[in-house]
Structure formats: C-alpha cells, structure tokens
C-alpha cells in the first residue's frame, strides 16, 4: 500500500480535495475514478478506504439499483433531479 493510502487522514483529505475540484462539473463518481488519486494502489485497497469514508459520513452512495456511484455527502444530484443538479 502507498504511504498516502496508508495514512487515513491524508487519504481522506486527498479524496475530498479531488472531489471539491471536480464539484463544478460533476458530483457523482464511479469507484474507478478514485484510482487516479492513488495510482500505485490496488483497487481492492482503494475501495476499502472510500467505502469507509461513506461510513464516516464524509461521502455518500448514489445508486440506480444496478450501479453505485460516490459523492460528497449532501452534494450535487439528489433523488429529486435527473442530472440537471
């Protein structure tokens, strides 16, 4: 595991910072999008850290029922919108 992913605070900060940067154009992301933040890590480890952030209330899931996406809690599309924010 990379030092960045291994350090819980730093890893969470990196994810939030990345999401904030993207917030203008997009609010929901696939798990794969987070791989870019941790280029040296295995997808399975990244998934664990990101899912933990949902449990910690920093992120939230959005699911169509068939796929699942992630976003900052309370940010962007909620159930009331159809992609128009």
């Amino acid at each position, binding site marked *: 595991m990379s030092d960045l992913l291994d350090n819980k605070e730093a890893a969470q900060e990196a994810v939030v910072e990345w999401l904030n940067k993207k917030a203008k154009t997009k609010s929901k992301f696939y798990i*794969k999008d987070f791989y870019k933040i941790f280029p040296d890590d295995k997808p399975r480890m990244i*998934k664990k850290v990101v899912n933990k952030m949902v449990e910690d209330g920093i992120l939230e899931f*959005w699911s169509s029922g068939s796929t699942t996406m992630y976003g900052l809690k309370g940010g962007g599309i909620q*159930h009331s919108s159809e992609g128009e924010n």
Partner: protein
Amino acid sequence: MAKHETPLLDQLESGPWPSFVSDLKFQAEKRAKNEEGIEFQMPVDVVEDLLGILELSFKHGRTHWKHGGIVGVFGYGGGVIGRYCDQPKNFPGVEAFHTMRVNQPAGKYYKTDYLKQLCDLWDFRGSGITNMHGSTGDIILLGTTTKQLEEIFWTLTHDMNQDLGGSGSNLRTPSDCLGQSRCEYACYDTNALVYFLTNEYQDELHRPAFPYKFKFKLDGCPNCCVASIARSDMSFIGTWKDDIRIDQDAVNKYVENDPAYPANAGAYKGSKDWGPFDLEKEVLGLCPTKCMKFQNKKLFIDNANCTRCMHCINVMPRALKIGKETGCSILCGAKAPILDGAQMGSLLVPFIEVNPDNDYEAITEVIENIWDWWMEEGKNRERLGELIMRQGFQKLLEVTGIDPMPQHVAYPRTNPYIFWKEDEVPGGWERDVDEYRKHHQR
C-alpha cells in the same frame, strides 16, 4: 370502490393467466379492511396509489418513477434500491417506494413460520407486496419509506437471523439450486458452497467493490436448473470426471418398456401418447456427441467423448447415474444485453475440485484472480463478459494462470494472426549475431 379508475390495468385481468393486477387489488382491499388491526407504517392506500401510478404510466406511455437515489442502511452500500415517484401529489402513498433485497436462504428452503414472520414485518413496515423471488434470486420486499429501513434491517438481522442481499456495483446475492439436499443428479453440495461464498465475500456483498454488478450462480449438475450458464458472471456447474455408471439390467427394463421404468421418470406421461419407448431414437440418437451404442443388450458409452449433457441420465434415471469423481466446471461472462448483446458463459475451468475441507481453495483462487483483473481493467459499467470480449479470452487465461486446452475452443480459429510473447519463445528476442553469422553469410 377503488381509489383510482384503472381501465387499462383491468385489461390485464382478462385472459386465462394469473394477473398481478388482481393480486394488487386483493392486497389494496386487505389493507383498507385491516381486519388484523395492523399499525401500518406506510400509508394505508399505498397499493391503490401504486395501481394508480401504473395506470398513469400506461396512459402516458412513460414511467413516473425517478431514477435511483441515496438510501440504504448504515454500514451497507447495497440491498436497498431507492425509488421515488414524480407524481407525489396525486399518489402520496408511493412518494417513496423503496425496494429491499433480502438474501434468500440456500436452496430457498423456508419454514412456514419464517414466511409468516416475513409477511407480518412487511405488512407492518412496508406495502405488504413481495416478489418471491426476484430475477436475482433474492426475496424482494417492494415499497417502503426511508424512515422504515433501519427498523426493518434491525428486525431482519436480530429477530429473523436474516441479512440483506446485494445491489448496485456489489457482489450480488449468490444463488443456487437445491443440489444434494434433494436431487440425485447433484455433483456437489451447492448449498454448502453458496453459504461459504456468501460468508467469505461479505464485504463485496454489502459494499460496492466493482465496476458494475457481479453474480455467482451455482448449479449442481449440467441440467442447470438456475440457468447459471446464462445468468451469472461466474457460473459453477456440477460435473464428473470418470464414467457414467450403467446398470445394464435397468437399461433393458427401459428397452422392454417395463411400466416401473418410465422414460424421463414419467415426467411427460399423460401429455400425449408418446408411443413405446425407443432407446435408439430417444437416447442414442439425441446424444449430442453420438458417443453411445447398444449392442447385444448392452449399452456402451465412450466417456472420453461424452460432454456430460445429462440427456441420457434424465431419460433413464434408474439405469444411469453421474460418475463418482465429481466436482464442477466454471464458466464466465454471461450477461443480459445492456452494453453489448446478451452472452452465455464461456468455459474457463472444465473441472475443479469442490472441497470444503480446504475452504474451497481452488475455487476462491480463480475468483480472486478474476476480480483483480476486472477491478483493474474493467471500464465503468463493464461486465466481466464484455471485458473478456474486449481484451480476449486469452487474457482471461493469462490472469487466471490457466493453460489453454481443447475444451476452451468454441469454433475453429477465425483470426489468422498469432503474436508470441518474448517469454513464450525459446531464447526470447535477443540473439547472438556472431553465432548467427557462423551459419549465414552477410
């Protein structure tokens, strides 16, 4: 008197078939009467509003359900599918109408008191409408509100020893046939393996892990009662290595049309007059590999050419039995047509041991190699079957460390190009020019 007029839905009650519209009307009336005095946590007219909004959707030719949402229970990222309607003023009963997927028991065995408990819970905290079972195999509880979710989850897990199933980009609830618990054709204990996989991969089942959905389905034999070959990303189909066991006396009873030996165990009896049983036509002639013959009252099977299709065993179950050296085949990549067309599973492992004593080590190794590849290389919303098509079956063999073998070949090669990798060529790409020049002039 119904709350909403539903002339279009009423049409669906005509004809000889059972109708979900009749079932919904029955349930609507049952809730209205509430003879058991249930303290409904959903609006009493939820089912009437469901009928109403469905009628409206038929009238408009478009859906009035919104797409997706952010609902779930704490710690889980699956098992609840958020649904809201976009006409809450006219149909307040279905403003929120979430689906809960509940992990069905292995082999779908229930006690009646468990089913009663489940229905009581759902009458109390949901719409009372269930789907036993959904296409995924789960118990589907249709229609509840966000506030009820944690309460339902608590009751399921604490009072009923029951868990939610998978949804979204999770491992989906593994699903199996009843296998050795009832069926003499079963080549391995599907219930035990499904239980093991469900426990082993709890994290993947409850929290998203993958580019898209991933399904395991388990069939005890090639009859494929749960159609795992068509319905799952990884399908485990029971099979055997050694010879089909033949009881020659019983074969002759079938040939003599002994009434105690009805073909197909009597399954097609009475549907029409099939005439006397004809071994040549109904068994030997239908064997897909034509590997059987019957001479001097003796049945011969060329087992090396038998594909274990089950046909002869199904027709003469008293005479033929599966072999003794049993295990399963693993097939990968079946899917419904969403991105590309529909696909059946492709055979990856012709035979693998199913061994509970070492925690099914051989099987979990294949699973985890495949996951590592798909999580790394799969595009968003790309199923395993599509990744196999995009990067090639050969790549799948590489990542799983499985050598190519004749069983992997579906049809003769259509691609005339072969690219060797350096480590596949003796000596690699490097050569000793001096050595070369000894034999070849400039």
